């Protein structure tokens, strides 16, 4: 429930160094990258398609082979098992995958209530959560993937084009939603084509070009 209740900001305000620190992150395909994002802040990465934005997020989540230092607060990525790390820094793909025909199977039972509350903030209803994945529109799936990630209580969200399939009204709602999560202490790394969204949410801005940050 961390990160969605607002009761206990991840990292805390009195715990010394908090935030996401990335140093010398590289793979055969991309990097090296340097980036620091404080707790409650958002780094917005924009850039053309194929410039390496998704690769960057996947490397932070350790989903692709890579090297370099990544830490959340005083927890270094290499010091915890990979699943633990990915629970702290959850990657949400642009086209999220679903492993069961039923939407509800993607949520742990103890998260069901929190999921409904979050879904409603994003303009979804309980019916969306009890239905079938195949009946959902791309935009609905994208928002449900965001809910699915948040109920697990991550310290950082790595969002890959989270509003790519949303209409303008839904984008505004999603932006307000993410701004609220930031105030609760969530760290966001946002990859997007939407310059307005990047300007609105991004405390740190980076431009990706040819698989590295443009100077």
């Amino acid at each position, binding site marked *: 429930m961390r990160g969605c209740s607002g009761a206990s900001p991840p990292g805390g305000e009195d715990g010394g160094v908090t935030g996401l620190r990335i140093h010398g992150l590289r793979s055969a395909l991309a990097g090296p990258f340097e980036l620091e994002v404080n707790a409650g802040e958002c780094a917005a990465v924009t850039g053309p398609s194929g410039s390496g934005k998704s690769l960057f997020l996947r490397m932070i989540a350790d989903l692709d082979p890579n090297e370099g230092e990544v830490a959340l607060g005083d927890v270094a990525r290499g010091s915890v098992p*990979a699943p633990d790390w*990915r629970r702290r820094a959850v990657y949400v793909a642009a086209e999220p995958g679903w492993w069961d025909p039923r939407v509800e199977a993607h949520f742990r039972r103890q998260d069901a209530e929190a999921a409904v509350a979050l879904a409603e903030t994003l303009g979804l209803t309980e019916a969306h959560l009890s239905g079938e994945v195949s009946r959902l529109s791309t935009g609905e799936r994208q928002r449900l993937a965001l809910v699915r990630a948040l109920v697990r209580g991550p310290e950082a969200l790595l969002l890959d084009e989270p509003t790519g399939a949303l209409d303008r009204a839904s984008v505004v709602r999603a932006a307000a939603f993410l701004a609220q999560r930031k105030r609760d202490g969530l760290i966001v790394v946002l990859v997007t084509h939407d310059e307005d969204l990047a300007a609105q949410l991004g405390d740190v801005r980076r431009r990706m070009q040819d698989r590295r940050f443009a100077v």
Partner: protein
Amino acid sequence: MNPILLTAPDLLTAASLIVLDGALSIALHLDLHWRLAVATARMVVQLLLVGFVLRLVFARADPALTLLVVLVMTAIAAREVAARPAWRFARGGNLIVGGAAVASATALTSILALTTAIRPTPWYDPHYAVPLTGIILGNVLNGASIALDGILGGVAQQRAAIEARLALGDPFRLATRALRADSLRRAMLPAINQMSAAGIITLPGIMTGQIIAGMDPLEAAKYQILLMFLLTGASALAAVVTVVVAGRRLTDGRERLRLDRLRERRRT
């Protein structure tokens, strides 16, 4: 109990049926007669060759020679397991998976049968060891190749779903559990179906052979039952080893899904 031995004219009479098939292919423009001829020729040569080799192996009764024959058969089966799936691991990985599955399942089941149920003296008597290994290999090959095809094809197809679970912090084992169970289930089905159909829809080959060779039908049935246990056990074992070994190669120390290690076979 002496079997009726076949003579060359006996075989030629039966071969007339193949000639008839060929004539049918020409008359109906099936365009199969050339392939039929090649397949027939291959079958005759292969079986006669095996007959000669086995005669030699049996006459020598040399454990090293028996082992060599069994190893060659195992290698051929492993290669077949590796070649069948549409996806394959880079750098000969399929051969490693196939070899591990085929060799472990076949060795374990054959040795179990030879040392407990059949018990020839010595237990590695080629009369028993070679044909038994052969029939077990055939089933193990099926189980392992279905399992390998299932897991490699499935993992490529379900990439987004598996990575979604990994990204949420689920361990690789959990993220691929449904896929592995599904591959195992598919690999087990032929063996289960074979047992259900045994004796009703088909009279199994071994039993038929033993009855023709003069064995009492009930004794032949008992032999067949033993074999069915062995075959089902062996193909399940091969499927499990395949799924475990292939699963391990699909991930790494950081529980990533390593699809970069897979290649799709070029369609010809």
